[in-house]
């Protein structure tokens, strides 16, 4: 069970957190955010425990950094189309595999395309696009590292039992593939995932993938990934900016640098949530509550002592998150699945209680910080315990 940094903008913060501070077990590099020449400069100490996500999600993406990789479909095919890519699919696969092998990453990732709709030919299209060419080339190259298949899904695909079964049958039909890198796009208007039906289905799918003896890495996940640990040895991710904690094709389309900077938020492990920094200052004034929800880090203390409110492009609050989340994962991973359930249940109930105390102050946390996800989480883990863990 590992915790990877999902890299995005400012990968150096992730590298510092991993290499200097010792948080996380490795990184997942993001070519849409980092040019090839830059990526190749990372030390082997950073590369070897890490993974490279080739990000073929949007094959005709025009993002300049992606174009620095000659195997990216838009580049390899001199303008991607489903027709002409077939002619270069194997060559693209060979170059991508060669790159990952040369860089000596921990595992080799087979990319996949992201479909935002319930594509009926999902598996056939993934086979033609990358899976068959990559497996063919990997066999020729006799690669010794584990092959991991990217599985980009939508929440609708996960929640639809027939669709999910079809995907599971497909993924498990390749004995050469030893693991999956699951990415789920879940469109929502809340920062935390609060849909019980989605979380139920996700836990079921992760359990089934594990029972098929595949390694499972869930990418682009937020705090809800703590719940996924109930399904056993699941690898999860954490990231700095929000777009590394929820998946969307937007980052392959729009120029995010033009976006307005979000209001600074701080992760409070006792609330299992991020709250606005300005409201955290108010909560901090209530010492009894603060001691329960906050974990002291140098980074957060610096932010609170600063005369100006932290800005979204400063690393402090993200590094605070890395430390807090990493510690929570460390506690959970030392436990059995049943013990994880018991502890998560305690954490969630405590978070609910702290939220009530905060409301009593009164401090009305804005909607994303208010903890509306906690009751659905509690219901989900209780159901999972009853159906999968309780003897």
């Amino acid at each position: 069970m590992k915790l990877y940094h999902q890299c995005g903008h400012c990968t150096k913060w992730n590298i510092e957190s991993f290499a200097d501070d010792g948080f996380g077990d490795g990184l997942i590099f993001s070519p849409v955010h980092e040019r090839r020449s830059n990526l190749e400069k990372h030390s082997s100490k950073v590369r070897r425990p890490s993974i490279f996500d080739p990000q073929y999600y949007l094959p005709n993406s025009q993002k300049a950094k992606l174009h620095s990789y000659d195997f990216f479909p838009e580049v390899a095919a001199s303008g991607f189309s489903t027709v002409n890519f077939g002619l270069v699919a194997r060559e693209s696969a060979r170059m991508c595999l060669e790159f990952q092998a040369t860089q000596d990453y921990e595992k080799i990732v087979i990319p996949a395309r992201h479909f935002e709709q319930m594509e009926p030919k999902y598996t056939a299209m993934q086979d033609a696009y990358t899976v068959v060419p990559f497996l063919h080339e990997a066999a020729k190259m006799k690669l010794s590292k584990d092959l991991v298949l990217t599985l980009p899904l939508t929440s609708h695909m996960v929640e639809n039992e027939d669709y999910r079964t079809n995907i599971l049958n497909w993924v498990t039909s390749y004995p050469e593939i030893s693991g999956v890198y699951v990415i789920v796009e879940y469109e929502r208007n809340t920062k935390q995932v609060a849909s019980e039906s989605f979380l139920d289905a996700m836990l079921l799918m992760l359990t089934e993938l594990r029972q098929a003896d595949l390694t499972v890495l869930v990418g682009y996940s937020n705090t809800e990934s703590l719940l996924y640990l109930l399904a056993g040895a699941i690898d999860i991710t954490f990231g700095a900016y929000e777009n590394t904690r929820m998946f969307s094709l937007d980052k392959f389309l729009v120029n995010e640098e033009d976006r307005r900077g979000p209001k600074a938020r701080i992760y409070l492990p006792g609330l299992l949530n991020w709250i606005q920094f300005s409201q955290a200052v108010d909560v901090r004034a209530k010492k009894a509550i603060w001691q329960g929800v906050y974990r002291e880090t140098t980074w957060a203390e610096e932010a609170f002592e600063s005369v100006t409110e932290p800005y979204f492009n400063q690393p402090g609050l993200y590094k605070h998150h890395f430390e807090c989340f990493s510690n929570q994962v460390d506690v959970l991973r030392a436990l059995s699945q049943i013990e994880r359930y018991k502890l998560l249940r305690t954490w969630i109930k405590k978070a609910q209680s702290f939220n009530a105390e905060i409301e009593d102050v009164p401090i009305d946390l804005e909607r994303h910080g208010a903890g509306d996800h906690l009751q659905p989480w509690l219901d989900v883990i209780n159901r999972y315990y009853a159906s999968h863990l309780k003897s």
Partner: protein
Amino acid sequence: MLSDSPHLRQILSGLLPGLNISSTPKASGQRVVYFCSFDPHPVKGTKPTKRGEWGKVVLKVSEGIDPTQIAYLQKEIEILNGFKSQHYPRLHWNDIYSEDVNGNPLPHRLFVTIEERIAAKPLSALMGKYHKDKDACVLTRAIVEALEPLWSHPQKLVHRDIKPDNLLIRESDGSVVIIDLGILREEGSIGITLSHQPFGPCSPPYASPEQANNDKKNITFKSDCFSLGIVAYELISGTHPFLPGAKTLSELFSRIKTKNPPPLHKVCGCDKRISGVVEKMMQKEPYRRHRTVSQLLSDLTI
């Protein structure tokens, strides 16, 4: 449907000089199968040239075959020729005949293959010998090992007709020989069978749910594992898991697709672990079965 007849034997004897038919294990159906041999000193200049050295052979003849069937047969030949394994019979000869020895056109083309005759008995004749759970487990493991070269072939082949009749046990050492590769399928290929058929090529009592549904995209080595699970269940319990009570083909397929047979440890008190392995082999959804051959082999190791 082709049948054994004096006329057919006469045609074959003319086309294959020196042919001596000793018995007919399969007298009718898609193929007629003969056990035979050739005169040790055949007339020079006649084909097959090396037939005098073959000893006992199995001659299979099909009639009126269409291009689809020919493609299947040619695939079987190609695979058998490529294998150098003791688990598959050696193929000596194959040809398509449209005329008899005198040059008269035949009413239907004949496709003839001649392969090594192995001193072995079909498992169907030896089921009682393996009814102890551990013996059945050892045999199932040996069958998996024999099938492994097929599954790990670059074309990822699937036998699709695993059943006791197609599993031979050598009399000399009890090793397994796999026969009848006539409906092999390459994983992921479009296939040469007709997609509108309600079920895919198989022997229905040993078909997997995906074969029963003609769900080609899900036919992988795991389909053979399901069939082999049925064989193992039958060996240990002495009962077929789906046949009893099924009066029609449709009822049989419905059972294969939906009925979970009672676990072996409850049926006949077999070892719980072995019961669990067989249960996993017979899971309805392929993803619930063993994902790799090595996992299956490991589970079958006692």
